[in-house]
């Protein structure tokens, strides 16, 4: 079972024409059609995305009505994406990840969620879990914990199907 975890820095690329957006979209499509693969995100990533949209709205002086349409459309993009539960204890368990890999609290709680929930609840092997992110620090920390990583800006669209080959 191949498990992908999509963070906010990768997910938001899907909404713009920047490098990596097509790769993320292709990944979402391929996972949806593959019974042996699943895609996860978390409420942390969703809230982080909403904060980025809000920041963008403030920077460009977007009218409220358009902002509402934008955020509604982005939240509506979650169909077919499973979410990892994030519990109070996860934030505390994430502290050693912060001090070891020098990542911020939201990255650490996501990393803890990936490492703990996906491996214990879903019985996934760390080598079958791929963190999809364009945050180099987050990716580095994930690699050091034994996870696979995928930076959509450095991963060609054409190579996406190869991820699913046995």
């Amino acid at each position, binding site marked *: 079972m191949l498990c992908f975890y999509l963070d*906010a*820095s*990768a997910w*938001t*690329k*899907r*909404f*713009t*024409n*920047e490098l*990596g957006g097509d790769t993320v*979209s292709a990944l979402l499509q391929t996972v949806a059609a593959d019974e042996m693969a699943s895609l996860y995100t978390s409420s942390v990533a969703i809230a*982080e*995305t909403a*904060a*980025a*949209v809000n*920041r*963008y709205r403030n*920077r*460009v002086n*977007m009218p*409220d*009505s*358009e*902002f*509402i*349409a*934008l*955020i*509604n*459309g*982005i*939240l*509506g*993009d*979650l169909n077919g994406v*499973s*979410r*990892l*539960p994030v*519990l109070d*204890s996860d934030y505390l368990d994430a502290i050693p990840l912060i001090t070891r890999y020098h990542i*911020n*609290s*939201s*990255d650490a709680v996501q990393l803890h969620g990936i490492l703990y929930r996906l491996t*214990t*609840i*879903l019985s996934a092997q760390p080598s079958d879990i791929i963190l999809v992110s*364009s*945050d180099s*620090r*987050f990716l580095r920390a994930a690699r050091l914990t034994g996870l696979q990583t995928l930076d959509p800006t450095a991963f060609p669209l054409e190579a996406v199907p190869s991820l699913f080959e046995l």
Partner: protein
Amino acid sequence: MKSVYISDELHRQAKVRAAEQGKTLRDFVEEQVQRGLERKPTEVPRDVAAMKERVATYQVETPVFVEPASDDPLAALEAQGFIIRGERLRQKLDEVMMRVCQQLGVEPPQGPPPSIEEVRAILARYQQMHPEVPTLSQLVLEMREEY
């Protein structure tokens, strides 16, 4: 005389109610238990029903986490209230959108949410007007640097 252990919170509430009625805690509790025992089993007073409803809501919001050992772990997590999926997720997001709209004083969106193409079109238009503003993805990284 026998002892019965109750929670600290229930003890506190009983003590307050007893004081309000000018009774000792022992008399108050005895009276309440007696009244409860005399009540017909099918009779559910309105305040108890309301209390049950509150407890049910609380249980959904703060369940005790049990690692699911079922064939469908996500369904088990959903049943325990740890994640929401499908139609409930859509309802939750609608509620969130409703609250955001109320804050801004705008009409809540009607119909299905904009498609991915529509979202891209909105962002592309603003990107063209404000090329100096970072993209959403860059803003995510910017925010992470600030934490």
